[in-house]
């Protein structure tokens, strides 16, 4: 098993820059999975990814039903864009996505943050993006450790076996 050429992953920094259900969950699943493996984990939210840690918006995240070529109807038929513009359709599709994930034991966003931080994972928000969206620390969930600059973020990426992942 062990080889002198093996350099196991020791630390990951995961950047979440997009705010749809699938983008946020990709980051959260990777982060939680890393914490579960004993890997030091830091999550950095920027631009629309901030929705995941925004108290007012975290429960309202959605999957795009317009301009999403991967979205299909039950049975695998491509989801027609004209349906996606009807009010309520995007919310309905998003509820279905969340139900499917619940079946796989994937928790809601707030519970996911509880799990990640319980294992020592750290949550950060981007300074520039919070300024842009006029968000303050109190607008963000309590799990957010700090609002930091890009320079601070790179400063966290020290040590052998560190990787940065952009989802």
């Amino acid at each position, binding site marked *: 098993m062990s080889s002198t050429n093996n350099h196991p992953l020791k630390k990951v920094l995961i950047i979440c820059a997009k705010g749809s259900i699938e983008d946020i969950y990709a980051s959260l699943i990777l982060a939680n999975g890393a914490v*579960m493996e004993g890997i030091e984990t830091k999550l950095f939210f920027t631009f629309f990814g901030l929705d995941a840690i925004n108290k007012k918006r975290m429960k309202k995240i959605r999957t795009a039903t317009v301009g999403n070529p991967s979205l299909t109807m039950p049975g695998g038929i491509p989801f027609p864009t004209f349906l996606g513009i009807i009010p309520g359709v995007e919310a309905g599709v998003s509820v279905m996505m969340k139900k499917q994930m619940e079946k796989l034991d*994937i928790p809601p966003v707030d*519970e996911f943050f509880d799990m990640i931080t319980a294992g*020592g994972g750290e949550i950060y928000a981007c300074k520039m993006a919070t300024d842009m969206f006029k968000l303050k620390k109190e607008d963000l969930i309590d799990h957010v450790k700090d609002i930091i600059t890009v320079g601070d973020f790179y400063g966290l990426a020290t040590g052998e076996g560190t990787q940065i992942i952009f989802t």
Partner: protein
Amino acid sequence: MTMATKTIDGHQVEMNDEGYMLNPDQWNRNIAIGIAKEEGIDLSERHFTIIDYIREKTLNGEALSLRRIGKSGIVDIKEFYQLFPGAPLKKATKIAGVPKPESCV
């Protein structure tokens, strides 16, 4: 997956190359203590409460995840991490003599 037989506390135990027991029937508390020592953990009764839960659920065919254990009512996720530092689900299942969970959460 290769297989190996290891002697733990005087018992012959079949394991895969990741150190997970292949036959849950070969498990006993002394073997658990032996495996835990190799993971750097001194087992307490508190550990055994969780190990017994994991064995009961797994041998009943229920898939385990970190989230399920957190919702078990016997331990919260924070304490689970404290009791089995680093990789709690992997370590606890290894010590419990059951296969490694396939869940990503």
